[in-house]
C-alpha cells in the first residue's frame, strides 16, 4: 500500500521523462504510455480508498527529521479526484491533441502536472508542498500556452506572473514558519504551535499562505489569471485546470494548512468565508455576461470554488462534508463541461456561443453530455451538484450563517441562468447553415464524456454510500475534536 501511494507520484514523474526520450524513436509510445500510467494511478487511488492512514518515510527517516508522505482519508479522496479526471482527460486527449503538433511533449507536461498534484496532496511537509506545487504550476504554465498562438502565450504569461507571485508568497510563509518553529514538517509545526499559540509572525505567515493558496484557487480578488488561462488552454488542460488543479493547489492546501497545521483560528475562517461568498457572486454574475463558452465555464469555476470555500469556512463537519462533496462533484462536471466545450470547438472551429445553435441535431453525444453537466452544476436533482450545494446551504443555516446561506441559494439561481444560456444558445434552436455539416467527436473523446456524464448521475444517487465511505472520513481527518488526529497519524503519539 505504501508503495502504491508513492507510485502515484513516481510513476507520472518518471514517465514524463521516459516519454520524451522514447518518442524520439517511437511516436505512438506517448499515447500508450500516458494511458497506461493514467490507468495505473487511477487504479492505485481507487485501491487506496478506505485504507488506514499511511505514513511513508523517505529513506526510513522518521518525521520530523525525514521527509514523509502522509495518506489520510482527505488525501485518499483528493488522489481519487485527481486521477479519476486525469485518466479520462488522458483518454480524451488521445484524439483531441491530434489537433496540435507535439503530442509527446503535451503528455510529458501533463504527467508532470499529475505528479505535482499527487505530490501536493500526499506530502506531509510544508517545503515539499511548495516544491510539488511548483512542479504542478510550472507544468500548467506550459500547458496553457501549448498552442503557442498570441492569445495563448499572453494568457500563459499572465498566469505565470500571478502564479509565481503566489508561489513566492507561499515560500515566504514557509520560511517564516520555519524560523518560528524550526521545522517544516506539518505535524511537527502543529505540535509546536499548539504549545505557543499564534504569534504575530505566525499570523503573518498565515496571511501569506492564505493569499498564495487563494491565488492558486482563483478566489476573488486573486482570480484574474483564471478567466484568461482556462479558455486559452487546450480543452483537456482546461478540464484539468478547472477540474482538479485549482482544487489540489488551492482548496486542498488551504484546508490542510488552516485546519491541520496552523491551529484553527476563527478570524481566518471568517476571511475565507468572505472571499468565498464574494467569489461565488462575482464569478456567477460575470459568467452570465460571457459569450465565449470556455470563458463562461472559467467564471463558473470561480463561482463554484466559492461554494467550496464557503463550506470549508463554516468549521462544522457538515460544512466540510458539503465542501468536499462539492469538490468531488465539481471536478467531474466541470471537467466534463470543458471536454464538451472542446468537442464543440473542434467541430465548429469557434468558441462564440452566438455562432452556435441547434448543435443537438448534429452532435447528440456531446449535447447530452453538456446538458447533463449543466443540469448537474445548476443543482437540478437527482444529479450530483444538487446534493452538494444543498448540504452546503443547510450547513450555512445550521451554523447560523443566514446571509451566506441565502446568497448561496441566490447564486444557485444565477448558476441556473447562465447554464440555461449556455445550453440554449449552443444546443437548441435553429442550426445555422454553416454548421450544417459538423460531425460528432471521435470515439475516444465521446467515451470520456459519456463516462463522466454517467458519473454526474451516479455521484448524486450514491450520496449516502459516498458519505459514509469517503466524505465523512475525509471531513473528520480535517476536523477531529481533539485536534491531534493528524499529528498522531504522522508522529505516532
Amino acid at each position, binding site marked *: 500500500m505504501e508503495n502504491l501511494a508513492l507510485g502515484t507520484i513516481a510513476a507520472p514523474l518518471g514517465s514524463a521523462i521516459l516519454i520524451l526520450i522514447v518518442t524520439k524513436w517511437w511516436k505512438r509510445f506517448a499515447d500508450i504510455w500516458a494511458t497506461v500510467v493514467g490507468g495505473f494511478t487511477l487504479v492505485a487511488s481507487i485501491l487506496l480508498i478506505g485504507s488506514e492512514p499511511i505514513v511513508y518515510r523517505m529513506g526510513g527517516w522518521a518525521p520530523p527529521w525525514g521527509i514523509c508522505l502522509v495518506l489520510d482519508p482527505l488525501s485518499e479522496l483528493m488522489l481519487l479526484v485527481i486521477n479519476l479526471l486525469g485518466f479520462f482527460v488522458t483518454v480524451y486527449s488521445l484524439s483531441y491533441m491530434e489537433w496540435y503538433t507535439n503530442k509527446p511533449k503535451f503528455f510529458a507536461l501533463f504527467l508532470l502536472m499529475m505528479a505535482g498534484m499527487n505530490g501536493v496532496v500526499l506530502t506531509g511537509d510544508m517545503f515539499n508542498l511548495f516544491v510539488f506545487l511548483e512542479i504542478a504550476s510550472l507544468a500548467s504554465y506550459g500547458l496553457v500556452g501549448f498552442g503557442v498562438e498570441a492569445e495563448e502565450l499572453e494568457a500563459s*504569461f*499572465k498566469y505565470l*506572473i*500571478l502564479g509565481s*507571485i503566489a508561489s513566492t508568497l507561499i515560500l515566504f510563509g514557509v520560511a517564516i514558519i520555519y524560523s518560528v518553529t524550526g521545522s517544516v514538517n506539518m505535524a511537527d509545526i502543529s505540535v509546536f504551535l499548539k504549545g505557543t499559540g499564534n504569534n*504575530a509572525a505566525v*499570523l*503573518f505567515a*498565515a*496571511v*501569506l499562505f*492564505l*493569499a498564495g493558496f*487563494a*491565488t492558486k484557487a482563483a478566489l476573488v*480578488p*486573486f482570480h*484574474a489569471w483564471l*478567466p*484568461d488561462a482556462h479558455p486559452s488552454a487546450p480543452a483537456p488542460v482546461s478540464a484539468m485546470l478547472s477540474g482538479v488543479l485549482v482544487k489540489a493547489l488551492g482548496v486542498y492546501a488551504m484546508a490542510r494548512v488552516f485546519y491541520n497545521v496552523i491551529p484553527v483560528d476563527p*478570524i*481566518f475562517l471568517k*476571511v475565507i468565508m468572505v472571499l468565498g461568498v464574494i467569489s461565488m457572486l462575482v464569478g456567477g*454574475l*460575470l459568467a*452570465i*455576461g460571457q459569450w465565449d463558452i470556455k470563458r463562461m465555464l472559467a467564471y463558473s469555476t470561480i463561482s463554484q470554488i466559492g461554494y467550496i470555500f464557503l463550506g470549508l469556512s463554516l468549521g462544522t463537519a*457538515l460544512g466540510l462534508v458539503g465542501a468536499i462533496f462539492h469538490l468531488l462533484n465539481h471536478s467531474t462536471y466541470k471537467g466534463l463541461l470543458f471536454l464538451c466545450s472542446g468537442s464543440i470547438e473542434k467541430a465548429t472551429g469557434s468558441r462564440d456561443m452566438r455562432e452556435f445553435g441547434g448543435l*443537438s*441535431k448534429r452532435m447528440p453525444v456531446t449535447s447530452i453530455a453538456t*446538458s447533463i453537466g449543466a*443540469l448537474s452544476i445548476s443543482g*437540478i*436533482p*437527482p444529479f450530483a451538484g*444538487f*446534493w452538494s450545494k*444543498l*448540504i452546503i*446551504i*443547510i*450547513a450555512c*443555516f*445550521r451554523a447560523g450563517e443566514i446571509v451566506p*446561506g*441565502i446568497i448561496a*441559494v*441566490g447564486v*444557485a*439561481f444565477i448558476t*441556473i*441562468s447562465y447554464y*440555461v444560456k449556455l445550453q*440554449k444558445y449552443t*444546443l*437548441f*434552436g*435553429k442550426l445555422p447553415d454553416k454548421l450544417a455539416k459538423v460531425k460528432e467527436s471521435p470515439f475516444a473523446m465521446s467515451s470520456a464524456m459519456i463516462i463522466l456524464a454517467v458519473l454526474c448521475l451516479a455521484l448524486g444517487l450514491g*450520496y*449516502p454510500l459516498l458519505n459514509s465511505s469517503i466524505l465523512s472520513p475525509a471531513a473528520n481527518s480535517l476536523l477531529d475534536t481533539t485536534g491531534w488526529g493528524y499529528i498522531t497519524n504522522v508522529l505516532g503519539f
Partner: protein
Amino acid sequence: MANQMFSNILVVPAIAGALCLILPRVKWIKEIIAFLAAAYTFYLSFALYPLGEVRASFFTLNLGGFELPFAFRGYPLSSLLVIFASFFVTIIVLYSWSFMAGKRGLHIYYAFSLWTLAAANGVLLSDNLFFLLIFWEILTALLFFLIGLGGNNKARAGMGKAFVILGFTDACMLLGVVLVALKYGNLSLSTLKIPVSDTTSTVMYLLFLAAAMAKAGAMPLHSWIPTAAEGAPTPVLALLPASLDKLLGIYLLARISLDIFQLNGGLRTVLLVIGGVTVLAAVGMAMVQHELKKLLSFHAISQVGYMVLGIGTGVTAGIVGGLFHMINHAIYKSGLFLSAGSVEKRAETTELDQVGGLARYMPFTFITMTIFAFSISGIPPFNGFASKWLVYQGLVETHQTVWLVVAVFGSALTLASFIKVLASIFTGKKPEGLPGKITDVPISMKIPSLLLAVLCIFFGVFASYPVYKLILPALGYSTNISITAPLMLGMGFYSSTLATVLIIVGIFIGLLIYAILRTGKMKVVEPFFYGEKFPYSYSPLTKEPDSVRFPGTEYYKTVEKLGILKGVYRDAKRGVFDLYNYLGFLGQSLFVRPMKLMHTGVLSTYLSWCIIGVVAILITVLTP
C-alpha cells in the same frame, strides 16, 4: 400493498420513459410503449383513489442531520389529481401519434412526457416537502427540454425563460424547505402546521407561494408561458402549461394555503390581489393576440386568477370552486390547445389573420373547439360556468365586491376573445394562403378532443357530481347527494340540470320563431363590420361578394387603440411588465457590465488587485 401501488404509479411511467429513450428507433415502438404506459398508470390511479387515505414509506434519507423519509400518502385530493394527470398524459400521447409524426427527437418527446407524468405523480403523492421539491425541480428540467423540442429560435427563447423563471422559484422553494426544516424539524405535509403570525412564517409562505404561482402561471411570474407558446410543440403546451402545471401549481397552493400554513387576512388579500390582477390583465393581453397559441397561453394565465381567487376567499364555496375550476381548466384548455394543434396540422399556421372558413372542412374540430370555447368563457351549461359560479359565490360570501366585479368582467372579456377565435378560424371564407385541400384530423387526434369535450359537457350539466363526489370528498367532507341535485354551496343555488333543460327549451323556441318568421323576403344592405362601415376598398359594392373576407381579428385592433389602454398595450408588448426582462436588464447593467469592464486583461491591474487583497487580509487579521 400500498407500497406496491405507489411505486407502480411512479415506476411504470419512469421505466417506460427510459425504454422510449434507449430502444432502437423502430417505427411505432415508442408511441405504443408511451401510450400503454400512460394508460396503465391511468388504470392504476383508479385503483388508488378508492383506497382513500393510504400511506407508504420506502426509506429514510439522512441529509445534513435531517431524517427525510421517502414517504407517500394517498391524500384524497392527491389521488384525484393523479387520475387527471394520468388521463391528460394518456390522451395527449395518443394525440401526438399523428401530430408529432415525422418530427425530430420523438424518443426524447415520449420519454420526457412519461417522466413528466412520473414526476408529477411524485409531486402529488409525496408526503415530504423535500421530495416534493425534488420532483418539482425535475419537472422544471423536463419542461425545459420539452419546450426546446420545437427546434426553432422561438422555442429557444421560450425554454430559457421558462427555466430561468421556474428555476428562480425553485430556488425560493428550496430556501423555504430549508427554513421550515430548520425551524420545525419536520417536513411532512400531513403533520406540519404553521400558524402565519410573524415575519419568518410569512416569508416561508411567500417562498412556497412563489413556486406555486410560477408553476401555475399567475402574475407576475407568468411570462414564461406566452414565450414558450410561440415555439414549443403544441402537445407540449397542452400537456404542461395547460393542464399538468395547473394541477400541480394549484395543488401546491391549496396544500400550503389550506393545510400547512394557517393564513391570516393579510395573506388572503395578497392572494385575492394576485388572482384579480391576473384575471383582468391576462385576459386583456389575450384580447389583442393574433396568434392562436399565444392567445390561448394568455387565457391559461387569466384562468389561474379564478383559481387563486377561489382559494384566496378561504370559504368552502370558493375553495371548491377554485379546485373545480383547476380541473375544468385543465380539461378545456388542453382541449383548446389540441384543437389549435389540429388547425396547425391542417392549415399549417396558427396566425388568426391567415386562417378562416375552416368549419366546412373540419366540422369535428369546429364543434369540439366551440364547446371548449364556451366552457372557458363560462357559458352555462358547460363546466366553466359551474366552477366560476362557485368562485363568485365564495367572493359574495366574503364580501369581496371589487374582485367579484373583476372576475365577472374578466369572464365577459374571455367570451369576447373567444368569439374572435371562433370567428377567425371557422367562419367566413377560406383565405388563399391556406393549403388547397383541408380535411379533418385523423381519428387518433379526434378521440382526445372528443373525450375532453364530453367531460366539459358532463361536468357542466351534472356539475353536482364532480363537486359532491370528487372535490368535497377530496377535501375531507363526505357527502351523499344525487348527481342531479343543485349546487348549494355558499349563499346561492344553481341547478345545472334544470339550467340545461331551460337552455335547450330556449334554443328550441328560438329556432321555432326563426322558422316561422323566415317566410318574408330578405333585403340586401351594405355590410357593417363590427358596428362600423366596412372599409370602402373591401366594399362588396365594388368587388364580387364572394371574394370578400371578414378577418375576425379586425375589430379587436380597436381595443388596442382605446385611450388609456393604448399606452398600456404598447408597454406590455415591449415587455415592460415582464419581471424577467427587468431582472435581466438590472442584472446586466448594474453588475455584469461594470464587472466585465473591470476585467481589462491588463496584467498590472490584476497585480494591484492581488496586492490590495493581501493588504486587506493583513489588516483584518492583524488588527486586534
